[in-house]
């Protein structure tokens, strides 16, 4: 509660000055956000150093152990070390989350910029396609696509790319329509510059910050999708450690070995908080008045 009020007061101070000149490392959302993500990434990268166990190899003689000095978080029903699966799982979830965002970010932004800048029938066609995708709930569409494409990492990328470009398209189109009316864009066009140059140099840099900010929260969404798919048994194929499938596998022991299900969930939440804070900090940092 007090934390919330404090943040809000900081926020007010930050917004009240027309130009926030604090360097990025003084930003009160960006720094903790980046720190959390950095820790998560480090833990994932250093997994082989941090734990001696293999996350996949089964030890059927040591199943369902409680925490001990050998297995800090115990073992699952196939005798695999839970901590090791958690750490190696971070590799999969973070990698897929970050990578899955790139194609829709680029593709959606380009299509949105074209629709917003040129308008007319191009705009109509692109936006009607967007409407079709928007008509379905995200999870329903992704699950259906993965079901059709078959489980596995590449079909997750493809499904997410096919579904989430529409958000970038909408965001960038809206921003471009506003930017197109700006006098500096008119001035650039009037200076006889080509459409590509005007879009790339005058419109683009002034609209892309919104899409970048959204991409941060989209990573959370993608990780949620992966975890959900894993939970439903549609995602990453089984022996590979992944938070969603860990939760699904552990739920039958929720009354006794509860940490097995809870800890992967906590990992998702912490990653989400880190990405949210980063997104928030980027919004402040990338607002046009604040630029350099």
């Amino acid at each position, binding site marked *: 509660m007090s934390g919330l009020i404090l943040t809000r007061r900081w926020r007010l101070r930050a917004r009240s000055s027309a130009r926030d000149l604090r360097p990025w490392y003084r930003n009160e959302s960006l720094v903790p956000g980046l720190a959390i993500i950095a820790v998560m990434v480090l833990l994932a990268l250093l997994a082989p150093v941090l734990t001696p166990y293999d996350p996949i190899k089964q030890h059927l003689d040591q199943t369902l152990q409680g925490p001990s000095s050998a297995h800090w978080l115990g073992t699952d029903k196939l005798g695999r070390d839970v901590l090791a699966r958690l750490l190696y799982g971070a590799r999969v979830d973070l990698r897929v989350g970050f990578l899955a965002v790139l194609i829709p970010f680029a593709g959606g932004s380009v299509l949105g910029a074209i629709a917003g800048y040129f308008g007319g029938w191009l705009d109509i066609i692109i936006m009607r396609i967007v409407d079709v995708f928007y008509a379905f709930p995200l999870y329903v569409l992704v699950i259906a696509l993965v079901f059709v494409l078959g489980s596995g990492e590449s079909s997750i990328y493809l499904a997410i790319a096919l579904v989430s470009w529409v958000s970038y398209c909408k965001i960038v189109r809206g921003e471009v329509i506003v930017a197109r009316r700006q*006098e500096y864009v008119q001035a*650039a066009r*009037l*200076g*006889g*510059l*080509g459409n590509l140059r005007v879009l790339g140099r005058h419109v683009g840099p002034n609209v892309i910050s919104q899409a970048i900010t959204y991409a941060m929260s989209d990573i959370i969404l993608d990780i949620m999708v992966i975890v959900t798919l894993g939970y439903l048994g549609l995602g990453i194929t089984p022996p590979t450690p992944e938070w969603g499938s860990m939760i699904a596998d552990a739920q039958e022991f929720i009354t006794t070995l509860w940490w097995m299900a809870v800890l992967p969930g906590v990992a998702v939440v912490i990653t989400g908080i880190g990405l949210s804070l980063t997104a928030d900090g980027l919004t402040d940092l990338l607002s*046009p*008045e604040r630029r350099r």
Partner: protein
Amino acid sequence: MAVAVPETAEPLLSVQHLSIGLPRRDGSWALLVRDISFDVHAGVRYGLVGESGSGKSMTLKAIAGLLPRGVAVMEGEAWFEGEDLLTMPAHRRRRIMGPRMAMIFQEPMTALNPTMRVGKQIAEGPRRHLGLSKQAADELAIEMIRRTGIPDPARRARAYPHELSGGLRQRVMIAMALSCKPALVLCDEPTTALDVTVQDQVLRLLAQLCEEMGSALTFVTHDLAVISQTCSRLSVMYAGRIMEKGGVREVYRAPRHPYTEALFQSAPDFDEPHRDLVPIPGLPPSLTNPPPGCPFAPRCRYAVEACNAGPKPLTRVREGHLSACDRVGQIFGGDS
């Protein structure tokens, strides 16, 4: 050799019978500009003056190809170096804009790209249109900044727009517009957003640079004082029509249209600080249903019955001085 450009020479920009319309919901058109014609000769600084809604900005926007969506040219031509600007395809226009014709915007706060160093913004045009190398264009940009009287141009070229004051930004805009030595510069009230003191400096600079580069200027403003500072010829617009047209000095000394006279009487004058200001009664006429005769007749103190009937074409009162008032002789005496 010839210092004064004779009126018979081919004009640089020739606007002929231009009408601009805005569609209304019932299918009819509101005419924002009605059948106006004027010529801008090479090197001449030409002013279009009028109150808001007189159509002066729309005229300029039509020439620049910047008419807002929905607003359309109904009739007329705008000849520029042998081509009609109004029917020109976009790619042809792109080749002209910059090296032959440039525009300076009203708001220096919004007309510069906030994410680009001003030197780069100035250099963009010359790089594309004059085929300069990156380095040569950057040098030209610094040279242009220096010519606009900004101290320490090399350092200023690396500044972002938000680091500059309004006056400096407007100078950067001028530098940008003139960087390719255009034959014609279009200005839409370029100094209204500035302090009066800065305004004066910027206007002088603009006039001086155009003089140096031999560029003609078409200048739109509501401020008669601004016109007198920068321009040599002007057209006074009212309700989408040209009411009076002539040399700035002649029109200021002896206006030959009641509207121009009323404009002068309603504006303060430093030479006669104690003169009472006379407001113009009433409001400009509706553009959808304009009065059949002289559009100014309902507000004109000299108006008689005949003013409300028949078209009022521009007629010559003196060499190079035209008025749309057909009672010039009775009102101002026949000195022509």
